[in-house]
């Protein structure tokens, strides 16, 4: 696989406040890369720099091997899908999709028949058949999303940047569009760089995930690797599914003064020591039962539960005041009857925890 896009040492700040610092990454041909970051991590800035809507302070953006940092946006040949879709409100669905082909600077398409067939193929692909003549205010949010996609894809860019493309859709639609987006991409073989603030979306969609951490790259890896082995406590935090403890390595255990967890397995190098255990790997037992070999755990007071449908979440308060979250899924665990303000033993396998230090 060749790299379509290569970013080297990209930095950008706004009035002395750094938004991106020394970001390097590469995106291969026909790859789906999702870019995960909490709000304020600089993910949208990165996308806008690649698209050419803004200029970097330092660094190189290589597209097909050429540095495009000084090329104006309209000459880059990079597609962009906006969070708010940014459809042309004065044009019909058909004209929105045709806009780029007809008006672009480089070899605009003038043959009506070729144009029509290209657009109709795209309309079919994104599932907008029969809506071509509608105004863009006469279609639903999901359909607008499809128009935005079709408009970009019809000019066959090598790479498409998507800025939280599903952010404006409601939850049910979002799940459905996730599948659609992947289907359309794989059918066209185009490269996607998809920015999202939702870990679920990033994990579901990317061949690889780039996690942005305060303007720098936190981790780049497959979804599986990022999810199971986040490289730093911060990356673990952004995944929203780890209980994190700060503390120090003390002999063969990790300790924060109140709790001690035995160490097993490798240590991840990190400047700030931390202990992370995934919420769904914890089991809840009656207190008083001692831990088996290879187990780690703590006693905690049960506070409340949350029921989110197929999954449920228990909240406990540990002795150090830490709120520990335990997640279960109806498919493999039945909900337990827990008494509020009673103490329980939370247990996990010591080798399933991630230790940073």
């Amino acid at each position: 696989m060749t790299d379509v896009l290569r970013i080297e040492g990209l930095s950008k700040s706004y009035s002395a406040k750094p938004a991106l610092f020394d970001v390097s990454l590469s995106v291969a041909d026909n790859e789906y890369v999702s870019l995960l970051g909490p709000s304020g991590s600089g993910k949208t800035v990165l996308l806008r720099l690649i698209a050419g809507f803004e200029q970097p302070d330092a660094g190189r953006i290589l597209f097909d091997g050429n540095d495009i940092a000084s090329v104006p946006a309209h000459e880059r040949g990079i597609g962009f899908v906006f969070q708010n879709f940014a459809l042309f409100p004065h044009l019909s669905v058909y004209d929105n999709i045709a806009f780029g082909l007809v008006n672009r600077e480089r070899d605009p398409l003038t043959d009506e028949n070729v144009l029509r067939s290209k657009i109709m193929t795209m309309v079919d692909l994104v599932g907008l058949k029969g809506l071509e003549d509608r105004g863009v205010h006469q279609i639903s949010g999901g359909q607008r999303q499809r128009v935005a996609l079709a408009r970009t894809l019809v000019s066959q860019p090598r790479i498409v940047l998507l800025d939280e493309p599903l952010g404006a859709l409601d939850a049910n639609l979002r799940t459905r569009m996730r599948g659609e987006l992947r289907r359309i991409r794989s059918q066209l073989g185009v490269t996607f760089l998809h920015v999202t603030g939702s870990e679920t979306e990033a994990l579901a969609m990317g061949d690889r995930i780039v996690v942005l951490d305060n303007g720098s790259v936190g981790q780049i890896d497959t979804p599986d690797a990022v999810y199971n082995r986040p490289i730093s406590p911060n990356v673990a935090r952004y995944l929203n599914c780890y209980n994190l403890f700060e503390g120090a390595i003390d002999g063969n255990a990790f300790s924060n003064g109140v709790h001690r967890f035995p160490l097993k397995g490798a240590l991840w190098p990190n400047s700030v020591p931390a202990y992370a255990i995934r919420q769904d790997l914890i089991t809840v037992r009656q207190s008083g039962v001692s831990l088996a070999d290879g187990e780690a755990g703590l006693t905690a007071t049960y506070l409340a539960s949350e029921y989110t449908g197929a999954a449920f979440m228990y909240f406990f308060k540990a002795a150090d005041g830490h709120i520990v979250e335990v997640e279960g899924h109806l498919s493999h665990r039945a909900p337990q009857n827990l008494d509020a303000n009673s103490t329980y033993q939370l247990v996990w396998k010591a080798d399933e925890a991630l230790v940073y230090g």
Partner: protein
Amino acid sequence: MTTASQSPDSINKFAVTPHVKSSKASYWLIAPGVIWMTLFLIVPLGMMVYVSFWTQTTFKIEPVLTTKSWEAFFSSDTYLSALWTTIRIWLLVLLSTFVVGYPTALFVGLFIKNKTLSTALLVLCVIPFWTSFLIRVLAWRPMLGKEGAINIILQAFHITREPIEALLFTELSVIIGMTQIYCVFMVGPIAFMLGRIDPNVIEAARDLGASFSRIFRTIILPLSMPGVVVGAIFVSVMVLGEFATAAALSGRKVNMLGNIIVTQVGSLKWAFAAVVGVILTILMGLVVAGFLRIVDLKREL
């Protein structure tokens, strides 16, 4: 369960996405406007200040610097009284346009929920502007005269026995005329600001137990203040520079600074007209600057 991190990011999203086109383009785009305004606005005003210090002879001015014209202004009762008249009429018209216009603005901007109807009412207020300003002024003469419409109606309903002569060719007639001509400039901005008040804000105040008079005092009036100020700027600017209404409706009895300038120019007393012009400019500058301190005009757009 973490406490909500205070993330201002959702607000700053716009701050992070400014338009980056080179500001060089901006300078090219703005240059013609700036040049135009400099040549035809700043230079003439500067010239006016300069000429006010020239020497005035009977029919000419000469570029010999002197403060004679200034001294003449400040030692003449006629001119000083014109200054006071201008200030007095300005304040009275400002007050009356506000008092007359606010309830209408309140009705149109806040009470009419139907957008078509409120637009229609505003259009109805604006329609008179498609008649020449001078004819609008003139139309007050048959209204206010001794045998004018108002006196006829008052007598027909036996409200007054004798015609009221004070209606025309007095300061009152000037103020009535100006109020009618300029009150729409008050109604428009106020109605606009009132229309922008989120109805939920008023509902929230009600929900907390506030009566209408309290809501008006604590919510509606403060929130419409920018509109009042913008309206006041419009009205002030126009009234302070007025001369036609005063001339037409007072029978040249009421002289504002504008009237003085017209007269002086008519008799080719350029330096003297320039002095009055500079004084009027200063007055205007003080008034507008004062209003702009209350409201940031740029932010209200």
